[in-house]
């Protein structure tokens, strides 16, 4: 994927600073989205039995299924890491020092309770931590959609506590979307997946980034895909160059 670092619009920048997230509708579409869906399907078939066995052995959670090593399974999973729909935003927010930490190619089965509760991912003492959640299929309201508390990423907001019922979190905003929607969010902020009252699992990809610090650079972490990282920008993004 050629990286065309288009930065945020002024409106997006305000949204990011004040609310802590940006919704990018149609960020992936057409043939590329279809290619991603097909790769997701194929990897799911390849890996599911192993996951079921790990669940039975108590080594994996039954409430979500992450495809292991997705970057090594299909180039599309690498190509979305620096996708122009959001990479320019990330570069702007990190001052051009975006470091990719890892992907979660995740299927969440229908369950009476959301698989996770409200939480921030990292404390404010952590370097800026950003996730991009990409809906691989349509995710309607009440189908496990991502939700965020606007402004909860800012120092001095809150304090927030974890409510037993996801829908009772004060001030939260549900973010359903069509397939191909990407949500860029600041991981200091409180977020969750809402309950899924439908009969369809939620399928999404979560890409995890951080503002580069020497401690987080692991030059060997993505060596399996080194052949796909031929530009200096990509090598920097994947931490292949210290």
């Amino acid at each position, binding site marked *: 994927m050629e990286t065309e670092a288009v930065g945020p619009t002024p409106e997006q920048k305000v949204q990011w600073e004040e609310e802590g997230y940006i919704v990018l509708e149609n960020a992936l579409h057409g043939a590329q989205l279809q290619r991603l869906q097909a790769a997701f399907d194929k990897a799911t078939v390849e890996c599911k039995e192993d996951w*079921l066995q790990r*669940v*039975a*052995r*108590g*080594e*994996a*959670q*039954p*409430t*979500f*299924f992450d495809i292991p090593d997705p970057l090594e399974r299909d180039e599309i999973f690498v190509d979305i890491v620096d996708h122009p729909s959001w990479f320019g935003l990330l570069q702007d927010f990190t001052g051009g020092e975006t470091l990719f930490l890892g992907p979660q190619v995740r*299927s969440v*089965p*229908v*369950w*009476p*309770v*959301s*698989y*996770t*509760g409200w939480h921030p991912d990292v404390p404010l003492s952590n370097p800026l931590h950003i996730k991009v959640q990409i809906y691989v299929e349509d995710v309607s309201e009440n189908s496990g959609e991502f939700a965020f508390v606007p402004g909860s990423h800012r120092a001095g907001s809150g304090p927030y506590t*974890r409510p*037993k*019922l996801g829908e009772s979190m004060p001030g939260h905003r549900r973010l359903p979307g069509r397939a191909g929607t990407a949500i860029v969010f600041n991981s200091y902020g409180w977020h969750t997946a809402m309950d899924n009252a439908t*009969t369809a*699992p939620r399928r999404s990809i979560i890409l995890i980034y951080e503002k580069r610090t020497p401690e987080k650079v692991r030059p060997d972490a993505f060596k399996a895909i080194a052949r796909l990282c031929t530009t200096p920008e990509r090598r920097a993004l994947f931490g292949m160059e210290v």
Partner: protein
Amino acid sequence: MVRIDAHLHVFAKASDQFPRTATDLAPGAREESVEKFLNCMEKHAIDQAMLVQLGGTQIGEHAYLQHCLKTYPDRFLGIGLIPSDCPDPQAHMDRLAEGGGIVGFRLGTLGGPRDPFAPVDVRTLESYPIWRHAAERDYVLWLYLRAADAHLTAYLVEAFPQVRVVFNHLGICPGEGKFRIDEHGRPRIETPSYNPSQHTVYRLARYENVAVLLSGQYAFAKEDYPYGDLMGWHRTLYNDFGPDRLMWASDAPWIYEKPGYGPLTELVDELLPQISQSEKAAIMGGTAQRFLRFPQRP
């Protein structure tokens, strides 16, 4: 303030009077008597306790448990077992409970699809009749489920909100092939450092009918007493369930030798140092008294 040990085992030597199935953990010649435990209670100011059947699922194999419950009715309540191939689990449950003292039943499986993506109709689960009967008779269900069944609990808890459910041993659901007996003769369950119950059992905190035992640490911890590596798990349980749905338990007799019963009674101080005295009192007995309905002692 009442102090209750919410989960332990007593058993007699296998005999005609007290028949039981011998196991590697509890060979037929081994005895862990109720009198030995009463001495422990006396020494460590424990008022009451929940005796959990060990040594077989058949009615006759509950003889020692029933003997203890009849002999010390104001001291103990009991949890029975149900054979996995029981043709009439409801009758089995009632027969065990009719003598008084046995207030609930321990389950290790729920009997449903292994694939969490498969649709679930609770009425088709093998354990459904047990849950329905527990709802009708107000029996407690005592869960120490295999990992493969962990995801099914939410469906049953939601279907039967009136059933009191107690997850054993920090809510851990042991994985297949992960059990062994350690060098101290205790159960040992190989468990990942990342708490495998984080996204299953802990998510059931929203249901007010679900409680969790703070017990079994020795079987899961990587560190020796006071099991500092499990402090985060305890903090999460405290945050999610709160002291009114957490119950301390010893899991005797496995801990008599190491770390010893006395240190176990202080474990809540070690692993939840930040809680108030009233919260500690709840975890050490108040919650068990209310949730499990222990009788008031004279």
